[in-house]
């Protein structure tokens, strides 16, 4: 009964979304204020209806309603409550419902928070979001209805994939989707700008907080995914250039470029059509990501849906959205004339370079991700592109970007003077050299060009990011949130550069075969294996190893890696045990028992500065939150008056 209610709510949502897409658009066409005003309540109703559907699915999970096919496929009578709630997005159908919920959430947020937008802009934005919602609700109802019943009713479910039974994985997909879907708002604003031909500083101010919000969710989502892979996949990697990771990373790169080009558009009225193009691209790449993951064309841990009908539907949807958006762009973009000249040695010139580097790296990732699919489709053989390709292309592009971060903040808008820049950066340069030297002396086990460059660039980004806000604070005595947020985000980027440099260069990894009582040396640590004991979890049985880590005969920590066997899914899972610290992670995970003497294959890693990679992401997110909440972006009644005039 609850499932039918949910299904019914989805159908109502479809009707609401259709109205939300059509009526306001008609209103804009006919300049009919009543029709335009329809958008706002429609967005709120859509959210309410989809929320009901979502609650119905959650209730089915909580009540163990195995007559619902999706619940039977992704739950089990022994599954703990928290994982029953998160299992809603543990499979294809439910995660699609979550997608739609997020989309309607963003639409409702636009409707509520941007009350002071000119009526035609807000009508167009919401109408575009409504159109996107139509596509996705239709997709859910036609190809992937989570409320389908199963006959006969199974006695028990097939359990949630054990890989997904982890606290990190409870929030990873929602954050990622928030980011993906969030770019639909920037996209909708871009469409509104193209239709009305209005793209000015005010437009950029409306769009910026939405873009930054989507970006910060995506940042957190990607970082959590990486954190999870590190702990749960059992081989200690944190980034694999897996096609699905790439699918989330490309919108992130383009979204980052968009944030920076929006700054230029707001401050200087330049790069207008480029900004619109980036907004369209960011959303298109989010859709492409959804297509890649959901169509099953990818060979990856994530590609769980392999129904060709779904792939065809998303591809069709992608073609409609992209075709429509680009046609509109080709037709209207020439009207978006930028104001005035574009000096290269200036803040905007440096931001343009930033955009070049970010889009080129996104293009390189796209090539590496799509080429194997393309080659397969045209019969060139089955090919895959390995991580060395991505590293070889991506890292050289990121190095100048890191250099630019520090430089750009120290040059003025319009025409900048070289002497200003050198004067402002003398101290940060010196400081960064000192800090980098200390860091490398302290933690680098081997000195080469890469650690010198990477170590300095990280420190440089970090120190230089703090220089500009300090100068501002001294000059004016106050610091707008936008500037503070920018500085913090750049500090996070610097921390991440440092972490990536050190962990990539100086990780020591050993796979060993140990009997209880034996030990192995990894870097300056001795890992002693004390043996295995069986333990019982709520829905799994596990072998838990005890590994004591010594440094010069002092006990540093004790690690308890587990090998779990999930009873419901009948699957083995590796749960690594990690001791984090700012200087290094100590990591152990269990392989398998070998022979009869109680020996085990064990992975032992020492990973310097690993934590900095994720801390960097957290700091970047905090910067994003601060920047997005800048009061300047809230549309004031004054802006409304100006817009109406």
């Amino acid at each position, binding site marked *: 009964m609850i499932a039918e209610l949910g299904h019914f709510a989805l159908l109502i949502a479809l009707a609401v979304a259709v109205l939300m897409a059509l009526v306001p658009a008609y209103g804009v066409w006919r300049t009919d204020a009543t029709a335009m005003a329809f958008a706002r309540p429609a967005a709120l109703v859509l959210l309410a209806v989809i929320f009901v559907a979502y609650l119905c699915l959650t209730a089915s999970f909580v009540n163990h309603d195995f007559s619902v096919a999706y619940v039977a496929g992704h739950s089990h009578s022994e599954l703990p409550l928290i994982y029953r709630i998160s299992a809603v997005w543990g499979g294809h159908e439910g995660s699609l419902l979550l997608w739609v919920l997020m989309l309607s959430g963003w639409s409702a947020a636009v409707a509520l928070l941007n009350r002071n937008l000119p009526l035609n802009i807000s009508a167009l934005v919401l109408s575009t979001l409504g159109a996107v919602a139509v596509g996705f609700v239709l997709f859910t109802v036609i190809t992937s209805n989570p409320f389908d019943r199963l006959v006969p009713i199974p006695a028990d479910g097939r359990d949630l994939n054990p890989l997904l039974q982890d606290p990190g994985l409870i929030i990873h997909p929602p954050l990622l989707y928030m980011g993906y879907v969030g770019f639909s708002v920037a996209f909708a604003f871009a469409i509104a700008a193209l239709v009305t031909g209005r793209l000015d500083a005010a437009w950029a101010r409306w769009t910026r907080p939405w873009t930054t919000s989507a970006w910060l969710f995506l940042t957190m989502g990607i970082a959590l995914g990486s954190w999870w892979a590190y702990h749960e996949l059992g081989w200690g990697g944190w980034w694999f250039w897996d096609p699905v990771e790439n699918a989330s990373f490309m919108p992130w790169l383009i979204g980052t470029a968009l944030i920076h080009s929006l700054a230029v558009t707001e401050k200087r009225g330049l790069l207008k059509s480029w900004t619109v193009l980036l907004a369209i691209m960011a959303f298109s790449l989010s859709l492409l990501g959804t297509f890649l993951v959901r169509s099953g064309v990818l060979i990856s841990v994530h590609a769980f849906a392999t129904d060709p009908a779904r792939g065809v539907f998303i591809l069709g949807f992608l073609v409609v959205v992209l075709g429509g958006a680009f046609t509109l762009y080709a037709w209207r973009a020439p009207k978006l004339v930028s104001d005035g000249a574009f000096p290269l040695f200036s803040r905007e010139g440096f931001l343009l370079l930033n955009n070049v580097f970010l889009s080129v790296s996104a293009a390189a990732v796209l*090539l590496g991700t799509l*080429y194997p699919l393309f080659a397969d489709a045209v019969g060139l053989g089955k090919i895959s592109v390995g991580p060395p390709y991505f590293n070889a292309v991506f890292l*050289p592009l990121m190095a100048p970007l890191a250099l630019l971060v520090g430089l750009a903040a120290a040059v003025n808008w319009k025409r900048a003077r070289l002497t200003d820049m050198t004067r402002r950066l003398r101290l940060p340069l010196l400081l960064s050299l000192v800090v980098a030297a200390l860091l490398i002396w302290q933690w680098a086990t081997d000195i080469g060009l890469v650690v010198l460059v990477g170590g300095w660039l990280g420190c440089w980004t970090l120190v230089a990011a703090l220089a500009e806000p300090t100068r501002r604070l001294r000059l004016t005595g106050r610091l707008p949130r936008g500037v503070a947020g920018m500085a913090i985000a750049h500090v996070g980027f610097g921390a991440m550069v440092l972490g990536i440099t050190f962990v990539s260069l100086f990780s020591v990894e050993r*796979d060993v075969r140990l009997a209880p009582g034996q030990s192995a040396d990894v870097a300056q640590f001795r890992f002693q294996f004390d043996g295995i004991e069986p333990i019982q979890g709520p829905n799994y049985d596990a072998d838990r190893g005890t590994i004591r880590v010594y440094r010069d005969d002092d006990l540093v920590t004790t690690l308890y890696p587990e*090998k779990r066997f999930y009873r419901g899914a009948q699957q083995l899972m590796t749960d690594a045990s990690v001791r984090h610290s700012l200087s290094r992670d100590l990591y152990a995970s269990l392989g398998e028992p070998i022979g*009869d003497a109680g020996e085990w294959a064990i992975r032992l890693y020492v990973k310097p500065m690993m934590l900095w990679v994720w801390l960097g992401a957290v700091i970047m997110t905090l910067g994003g939150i601060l920047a997005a909440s800048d009061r300047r972006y809230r549309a004031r009644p004054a802006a409304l008056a100006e817009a109406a005039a």
Partner: protein
Amino acid sequence: MTRVQRYRLIGVVCVVAGLGVAALLASQAFRENLMYFYTPSDLLAAESVPDRRLRLGGMVEAGSVQRGEGLVVGFVVADCAQAVAVEYEGILPDLFREGQGIVAMGRWQTEAGGRFIADEVLAKHDENYMPPDLAEAMMSETGHACEPFKSAMEVSAVRRDAGAVNDR
């Protein structure tokens, strides 16, 4: 040419040159890191297998896994028609099992009838998983063509029910 124009020209030249270098680096790295997929039949039928990293997909033959010193392990990977010996040193994935589809990455050595020296072994986290590449390669017009492997799957299922975790 005015100063502004000269300025702009320098900028455009810089950007284009940068993009050119990036494209060059990318295509170079791209060519070097393409990995081709082979089945055992492909490997044995090929006149010459390139001496570079490649991917081998197939099913682990029942009863073929043999442990050596330390973490050295040898096993046989087969498709419907052919089988090749694989050597690997390291930790096998959780779902590595006899009768299970796997993908191994490494190099092919032609000496002594040929061996595949793997540096990485992947098995998907799913009981019924077969690598998509392999599934396609093993498909005949009548559907799944590899009867022998069905029995191998049953063997592994029995082993698992006996409690693969606490089994030592």
